[in-house]
């Protein structure tokens, strides 16, 4: 949104005021219980690097995730939001991840219309075996979000 309500215009903090690189970004990652969460677990057990900026929220399926929660995470101060799903064909509820992809696709196109840089959002697949991928994409995403300030 362009701005603030007039009554509060003076007090409201500007989201980007602290400048790039100065603060640690907050990233919320919604992980599907069956694949991505297990992948994250394995990354931890294998002592692969996982960014400390990540706050993980486990959901039963990526298809369970309401887009409202993604917007609320951003509104409440998340600098980036990830949604990590089972690979196509592997969703325990058949097509929950494909439904999540459809929402993510529309949301990604809508975010810039809401004034939000779409690079703050990422949808990807991580299987239970892909500890290395989990470590890599979360690290890259946190760096991407950090560079946005």
């Amino acid at each position, binding site marked *: 949104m362009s701005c603030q309500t007039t009554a509060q215009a003076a007090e409201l903090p500007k989201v980007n005021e602290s400048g790039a690189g100065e603060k640690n970004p907050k990233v919320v990652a919604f992980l599907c219980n069956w694949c991505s969460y297990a992948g994250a677990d394995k990354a931890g057990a294998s002592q692969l690097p996982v960014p400390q900026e990540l706050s993980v929220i486990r959901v039963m399926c990526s298809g369970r995730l309401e887009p409202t929660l993604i917007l609320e995470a951003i509104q409440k101060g998340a600098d980036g939001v990830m949604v990590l799903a089972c690979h196509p064909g592997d969703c325990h509820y058949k097509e929950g991840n494909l439904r999540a992809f459809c929402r993510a696709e529309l949301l990604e196109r809508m975010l810039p219309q809401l*004034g939000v840089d779409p690079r703050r959002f990422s949808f990807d697949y991580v299987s239970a075996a892909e500890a290395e991928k989990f470590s890599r994409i979360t690290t890259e995403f946190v760096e991407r979000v950090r560079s946005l300030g």
Partner: protein
Amino acid sequence: MTAQKPKLAMYWAASCGGCEIALANIHEAILEVDAHFDFMFCPCLLDTKKKDIEALPDGAIFLTLFNGALRTEENLEMARLLRRKSQLLVAFGSCAATGGIPSLANQHGIEHVLETAFLNAPGLDNPERLIPGESCTVPDGELSLPPFLQRVLALHDAVAADYSMPGCPPEPEQILAVVRHVASGAPLPPTGSLLGCSARAVCDECPREKRNRLAPRLLRPFEAVPADDWCLLEQGFACLGTSTRGGCQALCPATAMPCTGCYGPLDRDSDPGATALSTLAAALDPGSAPGQDEGSLHAGLRAALAGVPDPLGTFYRYTLAETVLADRATEVEP
């Protein structure tokens, strides 16, 4: 005698006038309104002035139907004045209730809005590139215009509204039902309730049949002629009837136009646009993954979703003032 009747007011803030037309569309029943109320303020229809309202004691108006969003300081001032002077203040129509069409301007900064309206809109003839300022000097003296608010607000963002009556505009039958209810002296619902609408979705009133099918792709209205009697959404048209509150008797889908959501979100606790997005995406057949690589699967789904080229304009058409991100500073321009 008129002094005995409760006072009724209707005001337009950032409004198109359609809400007043909707009131006029109750036709001869307007006499009923006159019989029960002293209809004493309505700049569209009556000559009462702001100073007449200011002269009233606080709470002197029984019922004010406030339509239009808040775009200018003047809108805000009138909202505060009418709040003070009214016992019951109703956010009338989607502009007052949820920001409505005017709040779509919140996608852009004020400069962009002014430049679009006065310099860049097709068909404009403004060779001197004049944009109205907040004050200007003419031979007769100084003229002033009220400044814009930083963003367009719904009525309840600025003052406490007792009720909302959704619709762009509210349907005349619903207006009449509400006016009759209030006039009868029957108990009113708890403050904060919605008036003149249903507790169920537009689909509930829609004559079109649901056949439990998923749409192969989303369609824009010009891309196909909808089959009669069959749910538009299942045919792929972006009908928001599933996430929109009923009360209009499914006016649009009944005439083969997809519902654009003017009665507002059925779910008042979630972000309105995100909810509409979610329900529309759920109408699409996501297909099945086996045998397809990720790239072609994604390409297929993206193509199927191309029928919604403007997600914000589709999902927040009447509700952008209500997005949970309303107060967030813009970092990119669309």
